């Protein structure tokens, strides 16, 4: 029989490049094909670089649709993913953003748009719950407009949950990503009284490491930095140096021995892939979700697969063992991992599913 095509309009170059992983998707497809494929057919990945650009993304999406893709994995930002989903909608082809945690994407195209990860409101709530549990009372929110709603809405969700749980947001401070110097923000916090226990933001590499580094250098090493998956990159540890111990974050999963993620990483490394960060696992998970749906539907017909995704409950994934799409409007509910830095390495604190979740 013909191969089943899974398309991937990936941000291989440009702004969003660090958050997509063609390799992760490839590896999972290798694994599935090795075990005989799906419904007796092999899976085939067609990846196209969308260059982090909206027009190129739509063209890439169209090409993948033309190729007859059963489902399409899409890039991390909503303005690049929505056009693909819009183009795919008439055929009922499901489009899954591998890295985006921004709930706007499924909201814009509810029929066929999905996130592979949890939504930002969920992870921010988890972070807030954990922060309260650690006894933090005062928080500062760091806001940036340079990385979509991740930098803007995520901290707001945190603020919402944190105050709901009894904490206090002292201040919101704006910053730009990619700068080398955050001394102005630092001085602002230095001048605060009382000082915050925790600073939360939609941090990505390297800023997530630069902040604690500069705070520590200024004698503010006791303030904790919290964020979500943007922190999940081993580079942060070196960038932050000894200040890395101030970092705690919520992410998609953790490769603890015996976990599916650890097994996936180990297997893929054996196959010659280089694991760069958690997005490698998420891309694999995207493929796995599609595979599960195809099996459920008993067909590789896009519309059937699309319908099947909407019915997924408690699926065992790669980054986590509980994934539910049913009745979630395209944003799955997933168990998340709390990670902190110990002895210069990431270590798992716990898994979490928060009680209170702010509205998206």
């Amino acid at each position, binding site marked *: 029989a013909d191969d089943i095509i899974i398309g991937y309009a990936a941000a291989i170059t440009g702004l969003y*490049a660090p958050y997509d992983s063609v390799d992760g998707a490839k590896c999972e497809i290798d694994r599935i094909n090795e075990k005989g494929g799906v419904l007796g057919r092999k899976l085939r990945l067609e990846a196209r670089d969308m260059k982090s650009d909206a027009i190129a993304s739509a063209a890439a999406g169209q090409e993948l649709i033309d190729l007859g893709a059963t489902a399409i994995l899409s890039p991390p930002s909503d303005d690049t993913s929505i056009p693909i989903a819009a183009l795919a909608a008439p055929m009922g082809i499901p489009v899954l953003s591998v890295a985006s945690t921004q709930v706007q994407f499924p909201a814009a195209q509810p029929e066929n748009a999905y996130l592979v990860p949890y939504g930002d409101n969920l992870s921010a709530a988890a972070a807030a719950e954990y922060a309260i549990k650690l006894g933090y009372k005062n928080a500062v929110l760091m*806001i940036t407009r340079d990385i979509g709603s991740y930098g803007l809405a995520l901290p707001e969700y945190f603020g919402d949950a944190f105050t709901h749980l009894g904490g206090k947001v002292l*201040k*919101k401070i704006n910053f730009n990503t990619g700068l080398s110097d955050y001394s102005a923000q630092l001085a602002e916090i230095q001048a605060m009284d009382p000082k915050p226990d925790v600073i939360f933001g939609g941090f990505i590499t390297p800023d997530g490491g630069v902040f604690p*580094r*500069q705070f520590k250098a200024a004698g503010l090493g006791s303030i904790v930095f919290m964020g979500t998956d943007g922190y999940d990159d081993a580079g942060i540890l070196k*960038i932050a140096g000894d200040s890395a111990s101030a970092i705690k974050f919520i992410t998609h999963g953790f490769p603890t021995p015996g976990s599916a993620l650890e097994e996936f990483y180990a297997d893929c490394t054996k196959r010659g892939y280089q694991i760069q960060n958690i997005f490698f696992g998420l891309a694999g998970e995207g493929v796995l979700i599609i595979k599960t749906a195809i099996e459920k539907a008993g067909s590789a017909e896009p519309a059937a697969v699309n319908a099947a995704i909407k019915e997924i409950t408690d699926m065992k994934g790669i980054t986590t063992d509980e994934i539910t799409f049913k009745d979630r409007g395209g944003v799955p509910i997933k168990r998340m991992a709390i990670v902190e830095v110990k002895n210069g390495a990431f270590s798992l604190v716990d898994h979490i599913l928060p009680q209170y979740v702010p509205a998206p």
Partner: protein
Amino acid sequence: MEYFVQQVINALSVGSEYALLALGLAIVFSIIGLVNFAHGELITVGGYAIFFTASVFLPSPWLALPIAIAGAMVAAVVFEKVAFRYIRNASTNTGILTAFGVSIVVQNAFIIFVATRPKPVETPGWLSSMVEVGSYRLPVLQILETLVTAIAIGALLFVLKKTTVGMAMRAASKDFIAVRLMGIKANSVIQAAFVLSGFLAGLAAVFIISRRGAIDPFMGSVPVLKAFVACVLGGLTSLQGAVVGGMALGVFEVMLQAFLPQEVTAFRDAIVFTAVAVVLVVFPEGLLGRKVELGDKEA
């Protein structure tokens, strides 16, 4: 009060960084009339130079400093040799586009051969420590930055104003051929200018990387843009102008960040650029550029 002093120090060090970069841009501009948007990539190359040597063998992070500077200087010479040499005396636009071309090539080379993602880089620990000055605790980096910038600027101005090479550099900007007619190897003179700009970029790279601890292919883009604005703000053809422009821009940015209400800081860059625009409308020659009445004698 302490807050204010702290922010002033921040402003000075950010201003110094911009001044350092702006000076590098201004040297090249005042010598071959090229707005070198690839100046930022010199920083990037400096950073990756540390990264590569560190991944092979680097006994001490101390060595990171000369390596970054050397890397940037070599890159500057290479840029000149393979690209800028061929567009001398061309129009500004040709220059700008060529420089973009160079910077795109360099960025993508790092993307293809290294990675898009930021890479951690180590610099000496003492660079990010603090010293006590009176009742204030000040970051070593900031003091050093301000100091080194001041020295570099002083030395540079001396070279350009008082030495034959310096004179030749200033002469070559307007008439390359006439400089050769003086028996001066104008090529070397221009290369010297690029070496200087590379040196300044390398210096800036050290400071940037010590703060940031990471490198990535695009790390040069924002700084070079700021430097460009700073140069024009100060008066493009005057080196002192570049310094003043850099300082002014840095101080203004930090002060806005520090003293504007939070809702407004989201618009900070818009405010900064609007202010720059207003300054230029009032002083089209930049803050230091004097409008000399030349009649029909202007270039």
